């Protein structure tokens, strides 16, 4: 019974957007075990505080278990929860890092390149242009930025980005 509830909890923690599903599963659990939904919800809320706090403070599974025991949970249940925690913590940590503030995050990049055939000043041109569309997340909204690069600029941009990659890799 406890393990079923734990499963539901962890599924929600690892996929925090699936709120609907979480609520449906909770009410299913309530009906199956003949508990009313209201008190179940408040219990679940308090239980959820523990993993969230643990994540913020980078607690090990040992410490999570100790916390639960201090809160009055039986040893068996606390150990089970701590085990589940150990299993899921990489995913949960990754999610927390993903939630960390990012300024103007680059979300997508589209490009096209072509040849300028002519213009109002020059009848025949024949020069290559590269156009990039960067999709940037500013606060909650997406913003599109369009830029044009010449060929030499493109090559030096590529070169710089490769240097960034080397730098990032040396720090991971």
């Amino acid at each position, binding site marked *: 019974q406890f393990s079923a509830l734990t499963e539901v909890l962890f599924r929600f923690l690892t996929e925090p957007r699936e709120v609907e599903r979480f609520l449906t599963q909770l009410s299913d659990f309530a009906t199956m075990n003949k508990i009313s939904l209201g008190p179940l919800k408040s219990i679940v809320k308090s239980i959820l505080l523990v993993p969230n706090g643990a994540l913020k403070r980078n607690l090990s599974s040992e410490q999570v278990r100790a916390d639960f025991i201090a809160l009055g949970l039986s040893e068996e249940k606390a150990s089970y929860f701590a085990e589940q925690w150990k299993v899921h913590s990489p995913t949960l940590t990754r999610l927390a890092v993903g939630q*960390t503030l990012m300024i103007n995050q680059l979300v997508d990049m589209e490009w096209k390149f072509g040849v300028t055939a002519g213009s109002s000043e020059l009848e025949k041109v024949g020069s290559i242009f590269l156009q990039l569309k960067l999709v940037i997340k500013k606060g909650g909204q997406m913003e599109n930025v369009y830029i044009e690069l010449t060929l030499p600029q493109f090559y030096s941009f590529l070169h710089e980005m490769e240097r960034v990659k080397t730098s990032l890799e040396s720090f991971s």
Partner: protein
Amino acid sequence: MAAVREGELAALQSLLKAPSKDAVRQLCRECFSSPAAGLGPLAQRACPGLAASPEEAEQLVSALHSLTRHVVYRGLTRAEDILSLFPENFHQNLKNLLTKIILENLSSWRNEAQASQISLPRLVDMDWRVDIKTSSDSISRMAVPTCLLQLKIQEDVALCGNSPVVSALTVELSKETLDTMLEGLGRIRDQLSAVANK
């Protein structure tokens, strides 16, 4: 924009009054570089020395502007082509001088025309920095490297005239985003070399 009318070029004969060949050269350059709307002040400066009246000055400046722009537009590179633009009884030496000046300046004028083409905002400069995120409100200890990229973008030159607006855009990229971006850039490079080799 680039058509030259026969009658127009006759106005160029006012240049015979110019103090020196360099003065003519200078005026040619200024007339080419100035947009059609900016020829007024140029005409005023030419007036006392070269032209008897403001109308003559305006005609002179406008003719020079049309002539130089026309040559650059059509991409004429041979002296004969340029000489053939002048009317029949045009002063011989002046014709040769003007042709010579135009040919001298042709490639730099072509570059100038290309640089002032309409285009999407152009990348002018880029800088980057790698930071390591050590903690945040959602997780207290971590060591996640991230890249901050600053792009300096200049709005369309034609719209800004002489005071181009340069804006700086700072973008953050995670390692995954950078890898995907590099993949895309690599594909562009491959396609570019495929096109170049055809």
